[in-house]
């Protein structure tokens, strides 16, 4: 009797849990498509699908999307899953395709998972643009504000600037399937082999860059596992902050140098007290604006050419389907508070 009850409970728990997993994205929809447009000259509908909604990074991206919508006269809006989940993101893209938008710009959680959906979009004549996914298959153009090879190398230059060119270091990424974080990590490791041969990576990259408490814990653990650790490169906006907190807690801010991608206003106190040394980034609002600009440019039947000028952002280089700008931005104690995000 008792045992049966237990089994029933466990079974129902499982069912509920799987339902829970399936329901969460629908339950917390954010940034619903803007209200219907006045019917006049139907403006282009451009949907920007980000990795995860409701985090500061993509909130700033959204300001760029909104600015583009206003300035360019298109119906552009941002949406995305409530968790950085590839499957939920694919579902949103498929819904947008079914809805019949004119262009979809995606910041992929998982490049591979989106390929079939992109194929479908193309069949329906929808323009597909990606961002932060340089090797994306199935996209019309991948738009990058930075040269990712240079960016990865720049991160290691910053690391060496603060820890010296000899010693042990570790890498944080947002997740092991986040294309760009791992690309930067690959590039940096490769670059360090020739440029800084005395740097030693202590362990595989650790997926804690989007969870501050986890990054803090992992840093405490790293300090003990590798007592000679001298540096941490963190990709994902919370990794470096969590690391900086752990170092501050342990009074190790002079011994271990933290650099990486951060939101300037959030990192400002850590940069000022020295628990984090330097950050590197581009302006996410530019990403939102650029994606919408590019989508509209293509929808109007224009062609992308090497060396063309994107208004307010400089010259773009074209390499296959990769449209690249060069907007790497150093973040330090002096400028962190004045960057506006």
């Amino acid at each position, binding site marked *: 009797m008792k045992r049966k009850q237990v089994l029933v409970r466990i079974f*129902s728990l499982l069912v509920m849990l799987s339902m829970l997993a399936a*329901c969460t994205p629908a339950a*917390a929809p954010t940034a619903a498509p803007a209200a219907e447009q006045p019917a006049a000259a139907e403006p282009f509908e451009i949907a920007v699908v980000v990795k995860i909604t*409701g*985090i500061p990074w993509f909130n700033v991206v959204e300001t760029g999307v909104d600015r583009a919508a206003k300035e360019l006269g298109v119906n552009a809006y941002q949406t995305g899953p409530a968790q950085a989940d590839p499957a939920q993101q694919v579902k949103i893209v498929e819904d947008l395709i079914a809805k019949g938008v004119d262009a979809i710009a995606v910041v992929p959680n998982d490049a591979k998972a989106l390929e079939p959906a992109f194929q479908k979009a193309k069949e329906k004549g929808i323009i597909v643009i990606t961002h932060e996914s340089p090797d994306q298959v199935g996209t019309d153009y991948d738009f990058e504000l930075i040269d990712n090879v240079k960016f990865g190398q720049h991160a290691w230059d910053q690391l060496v600037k603060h820890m010296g060119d000899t010693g042990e270091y570790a890498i944080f990424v947002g997740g092991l399937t986040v294309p760009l974080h791992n690309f930067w990590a690959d590039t940096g490791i490769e670059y360090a082999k020739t440029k800084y041969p005395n740097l030693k990576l202590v362990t*595989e990259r650790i997926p804690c860059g989007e969870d501050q408490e986890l990054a803090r814990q992992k840093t405490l653990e790293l300090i*003990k596992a590798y007592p000679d650790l001298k540096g941490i490169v963190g990709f994902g906006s919370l990794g470096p902050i969590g690391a900086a907190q752990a170092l501050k807690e*342990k009074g190790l801010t002079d011994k271990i140098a933290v650099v990486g991608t951060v939101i300037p206003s959030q990192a400002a106190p850590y940069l000022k007290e020295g628990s984090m040394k330097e950050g590197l980034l581009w302006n996410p609002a530019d990403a939102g604006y650029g994606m919408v600009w590019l989508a509209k440019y293509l929808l109007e039947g224009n062609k992308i050419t090497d060396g063309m000028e994107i208004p307010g952002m400089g010259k773009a280089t074209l390499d296959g389907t990769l449209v690249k700008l060069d907007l790497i931005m150093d973040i330090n104690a002096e400028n962190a508070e004045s960057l506006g995000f």
Partner: protein
Amino acid sequence: MKTLLRRHEAYVLLIIIVVSIIITAVNPSFFSLENLFDLLKSMSLMGVFAIGMLFVLISGGIDLSFTAIATVSGYAVALALLRYGDSLNIFVIFLLAGAIGILLGAFNAAIIYFFRIPSIITTIATSNVFYGILTVLSEGKWLYGFPTWFGDFANIRLFTLYSPAGNPYGLSIVTVIWLALVLLAWFILRYTVLGRSIYAMGGSPSSAERAGFNLLRLNLFVYAFIGLMAGFGSVIQALLVQTVAPNSLVGKEMDVIAAVVLGGASLAGGTGSIMGTVLGVALITLLGNGLTLMHVPSQWYDVVIGLVILVSVGVSAYRMRKNIQRRVITETA
């Protein structure tokens, strides 16, 4: 029944000891006071949530909304800190978070009791409501830049020691708060009529009612209590990371439930102990810590943690089944 419980806890403790020995063999720096205190601090957040979950599981229910409750109260606390900053103190903060937690928890209890909806369904629904409303109102904004006193409080240690390398460590105030709550919970469960009636209700609600227990009051207490723990947990989370993000806790329910079940609580209600819960939390935290210290590549974390949960819960379920079989045989004989 009691000896069985004790045996289960002893069993978890045994696994902890074995795991510790393995980790120490690979990396002796695991077995240090410094790591012990750091671990205790890392455990505190999950530990506080686990206390609340234990009460609910004993009562025969389950609560999947506590992370949403914690998110709401954490957000309220963060807003208060940003607006009134220096005029507040830590007690007001805990009071505010606790009050919001109790309120939302009582709401859960009322729905569960009056509409007789299973707790799992109720709390999935309310979790979405709480979290959804917060997402709408907050637009997902992260809150940080709290007053300095709030950051300083988080760094208080009851005593400070220095490792050979000169790193400071000690018993963190956060750990002390957790341990105080553990003591309180232990006292309630062990020595009060209230605690014993929660076990009674979990064992068999209808007999408990017939025996004169007020199920409404018990339900209210249990869900308000996990709400209180969720509220306190949200303050601890804010103390630890000095940032409140609407999405940082939701999704962590399963780790907490896993820890409590690992510690011997049954999803069918009526069993579970605070000692087991603390051990369950310890084991889960230990594994994550140990894998890094053993230089295991990060890809393997989830696999190992999943396997350990499976093995230990599996073994204890197997023992329980054998025990039941034995009982049936003696009863029929």
